[in-house]
């Protein structure tokens, strides 16, 4: 099975109507694939850093060589439950918007592939994408964290401890 069929299945699940003539659509396609790869879903399109941030030249080649299939969402591949869940989350969190997708994929790449700490990853995003505002970068990073990092049981316990005092105080206030 050609690898593009799985990528097309994701586009279909996301309701992404790809048009090769639109720059933003080509950008969205690249960043969707990179974010899914960063999340651990193997689409066969490995992403590396280029002047456009995380990017897959193999995907570009397929987008141009099989444009008709991408534009008409032609695929016989069905996503499994985990893949459908990832597609749903990707759509819910990023909503097919180019800027958060681009910022999010870039942050994820530095953070996961290059193992940068959060501060260094943010610094690298700002260096590579200085044309985006602080607010756009903050939003993209927050979305990337939501999509790429699942809180562990330990994280949830720590959060409960941290917020517990406030919750108890609120309940006490309500009693009065």
């Amino acid at each position: 099975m050609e690898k593009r069929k799985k990528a097309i299945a994701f586009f279909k699940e996301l309701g992404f109507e790809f048009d090769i003539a639109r720059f933003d659509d080509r950008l969205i396609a690249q960043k969707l694939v990179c974010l899914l790869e960063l999340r651990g879903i193997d689409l066969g399109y490995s992403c590396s850093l280029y002047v456009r941030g995380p990017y897959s030249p193999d995907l570009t080649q397929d987008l141009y060589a099989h444009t008709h299939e991408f534009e008409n969402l032609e695929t016989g591949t069905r996503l499994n439950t985990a893949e459908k869940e990832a597609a749903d989350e990707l759509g819910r969190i990023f909503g097919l918007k180019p800027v958060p997708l681009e910022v999010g994929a870039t942050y994820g790449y530095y953070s996961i592939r290059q193992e940068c700490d959060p501060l260094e990853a943010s610094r690298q995003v700002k260096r590579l994408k200085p044309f985006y505002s602080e607010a756009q970068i903050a939003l993209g990073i927050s979305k990337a964290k939501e999509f790429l990092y699942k809180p562990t049981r330990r994280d949830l316990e720590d959060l409960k401890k941290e917020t517990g005092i406030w919750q108890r105080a609120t309940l006490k206030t309500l009693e009065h």
Partner: protein
Amino acid sequence: MQNDILSILNESEGLNAKVFSLVRLKLLASLAALGPDGATYRELKAALDINDGVLFANLNVLKDMGYLTSEKITSEGKELELYIITTEGQDEWKRIRIWLCRFLHCGA
């Protein structure tokens, strides 16, 4: 194919000497990897850390040589300039890469 340094140096006569500046090589290498997708001016400027004057002048030289084309595109409502490598640009970059590899392997 001969591997002596003189032969390798002489092979360079088949290359376009005007491409041999660091900025032009960086631009060709960057855009060759992206193929027909290209990159916008602002992406090239940020990623390669080249100032406006130098970047604009060198992009125009590469365009004049027929190695790049440019077009206006709209992204998120903003009009941007997109630069794309041509077939001639890809061919020249391939020739340079092959020659550089041979040059470095010979231990020069």
